[in-house]
C-alpha cells in the first residue's frame, strides 16, 4: 500500500495543490491530511475544495477544532507572549475568513483516523494519539515513550504533524513514529520548499526496507520525506495583499522560522537561524 500523508496546511493552498499533484504522480492508494488547515497563510477557504475534490480524508487539528467551534484562540500550545501575539493575529484573520459551511466541516472532523495497510495498524493523528496539541519533537522524545504510545494505542505506525518539523524513528519490533512535516511553511532549514511524506508498505516498500514485526506476519515499511516546491513568491504576494505579518512572509521567502520559536527544544532551535 502507498500512502501520501501531510498536514499543517496553514491555508497554503498552492503547496496543497503541488502536494496532491505529487501524490497522484506516485499513484498512491490514499492521501490523508493530518489537520490544521488554517493559520499563517491567506484565503483560508481555498484549501477546502481541493481536499473535497480529491476525496482527501482529514484528521482534526487543534486549529480546526478552534475554528470549527469558533473558540477564542487556536489552542496551539505556545507559551511565549510574542509567539501568542502572532498566533492570535493569524487566528483572528482565519476565523474571520473561513465560511460558516467550512467551519461546520472542520468541527465534525475526527481526531484520529485508523487504517490497516498490509496487516499493519496505522494510526493518523495531529499531535500525539493522546492529545491533539501535544508537541513531539525529535530531540525531546525518548524511544521508551514512543514505544509506550504504540502499545497503549495499539498501533504499528503512528503519524502526526503538529510540531511542524519532519522526523521519523524506528521503534521496538520495527514499529514507527513519523512526523510528516507540514505544507504550510518551510521546515526551518533555509529552504523554501515544504514537506510531504510517502509511506509504502508490503509489496510497495523497498526491498531493503525496515521490517515491522507486529503480532502477525512481518511487513516491510518504507518512509520517504518528499520536498514539495510551489510558487512561494505568489503566496508571499497574496499574504502581503491580505496584510498578514511581515514575519510570516519572511519565513515563506527565506525558509527560516521567525515566530513560534520558544516552544522548540534547543536542538531544533539551533538548527534554525533565529
Amino acid at each position: 500500500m502507498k500512502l501520501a500523508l501531510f498536514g499543517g496546511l496553514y491555508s497554503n493552498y498552492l503547496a496543497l495543490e503541488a502536494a496532491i499533484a505529487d501524490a497522484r504522480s506516485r499513484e498512491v492508494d490514499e492521501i490523508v491530511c493530518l489537520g490544521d488547515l488554517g493559520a499563517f497563510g491567506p484565503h483560508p477557504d481555498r484549501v477546502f475544495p481541493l481536499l473535497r475534490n480529491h476525496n482527501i480524508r482529514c484528521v482534526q487539528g487543534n486549529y480546526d477544532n478552534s475554528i470549527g467551534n469558533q473558540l477564542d484562540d487556536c489552542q496551539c500550545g505556545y507559551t511565549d507572549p510574542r509567539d501568542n501575539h502572532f498566533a492570535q493575529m493569524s487566528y483572528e484573520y482565519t476565523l474571520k475568513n473561513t465560511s460558516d459551511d467550512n467551519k461546520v466541516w472542520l468541527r465534525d472532523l475526527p481526531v484520529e483516523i485508523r487504517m490497516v495497510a498490509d496487516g499493519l495498524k496505522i494510526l493518523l493523528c495531529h499531535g500525539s494519539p493522546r492529545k491533539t496539541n501535544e508537541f513531539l519533537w525529535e530531540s525531546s522524545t525518548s524511544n521508551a515513550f514512543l514505544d509506550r504510545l504504540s502499545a497503549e494505542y495499539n498501533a504499528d505506525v503512528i503519524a502526526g504533524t503538529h510540531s511542524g518539523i519532519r522526523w521519523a524513528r524506528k521503534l521496538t519490533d520495527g514499529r514507527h513514529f513519523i512526523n510528516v512535516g507540514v505544507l504550510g511553511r518551510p521546515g526551518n532549514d533555509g529552504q523554501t520548499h515544504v514537506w510531504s511524506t510517502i509511506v509504502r508498505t508490503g509489496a510497495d516498500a523497498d526491498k531493503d526496507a525496515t521490517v515491522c514485526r507486529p503480532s502477525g506476519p512481518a511487513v516491510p515499511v518504507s518512509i520517504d520525506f518528499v520536498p514539495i516546491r510551489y510558487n512561494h513568491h505568489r503566496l508571499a504576494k497574496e499574504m502581503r495583499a491580505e496584510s498578514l505579518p511581515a514575519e510570516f512572509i519572511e519565513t515563506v521567502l527565506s525558509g527560516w522560522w521567525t515566530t513560534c520559536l520558544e516552544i522548540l527544544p534547543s536542538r531544533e532551535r539551533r538548527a534554525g537561524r533565529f
Partner: protein
Amino acid sequence: MSQATSMYPSIELRSLDELWFQVAGTVCNLTCEHCFISCSPHNHSFEFLSFKDVETALQESVQHGVREYYFTGGEPFLNKSLRQMLKRTLEYGPATVLTNGTVLSRSWLNELYAAEQASRFSLEFRVSIDGPSPDINDPVRGAGTFEKAIQGVSLLCDAGFLPIVTMTQTWDDSDSLQILEDFRSVLKSHGCSRPRLKILPRLKIGAEENRTEGYQDTERITPEMMHDFDRNQLLCNHSRVVTNRGIFVCPILIESSDARMGETLGKSLQPFSMQHGACYTCYQYGTICSNTTLSPPERPTKS
C-alpha cells in the same frame, strides 16, 4: 483516607512522562534566601545520588515509557558523577540540568556538548538568575552571584548550548515584560544570541517561608477547583523524583514526609493528595517545573 486529607483533591499519575533526579540532594554552594528546600553547603538532609542510583532508575524508567529526564539539587554540578550520569541518560532520552551556573567549567561543557552531539536527544540547561541585574538577583541569591552566573551562561553559550535562564519572580506582575526585555539585552551582551527566559513563581516554603511569609490556610486546592482543570498543568500528574531517600511526588515537596511515594518507581505510582500550599502555586501557574512554559499563563484563582 483520613478526614484531614479528604478535604484535598487527589491526583492520579496519568503517565510517567518525566523522571527527575535529586542528584545533589539538598547540597548547594549557594544559600539562596528564597530556596524552597533550604539548600546550602551544610544541608545534608538529602545526599548525592550515585551513578548506580541513576542507572538503576534509568533502566526501570524504560518500562514506564519515560519521555525525558531532569537533574536538580542543590547544585547538580557539585556531584562529580553528573557528567557520567548525563552521558548515560542521553542514551535513553533528553536531559535537562537545573544549575545555578556558578560552578561550571569550560572543559566539562565541551565534554557534554560532544556527548549531546553523539546522541539524538537534547541536553538542556536551565540557569537560575533572579533578574537582569545584581540589584535584583544578589540580595536573594548572595553577593556576587549575578556576575558568576552570567559568566556561567556565557560559558554554556560558548560551548554551543542555548541555556534557559529561569527567574524566580520577586517583582510585581506589571514589571515582568520590562524585566524580560532587559534580561534579553543583558544576555545578548554576554554572548547569548538567542536568549530563552522563563519566569517562576515564588514557592513559600523552605527558606522562602522565613524570608517573607508562608502559605495561608486558604491557599489550598479544593476538590471543586479541579473541575474542568487541565491536570496536565501539574507535575505530579506525569512525574516522580528519585532521591537518596526514595521516590517523591515532585522536586518541590521532598521535605514533606507525605510526598514520599515509595522505594522504587514501580511502588510510587499511586495517587497523591494535594494538601500543600505549594500545590496551590503549581495550580495557579501551571507546569512551573517543565522547560516549555516561558512566562506564567493567566492564573486561575478561587472565585
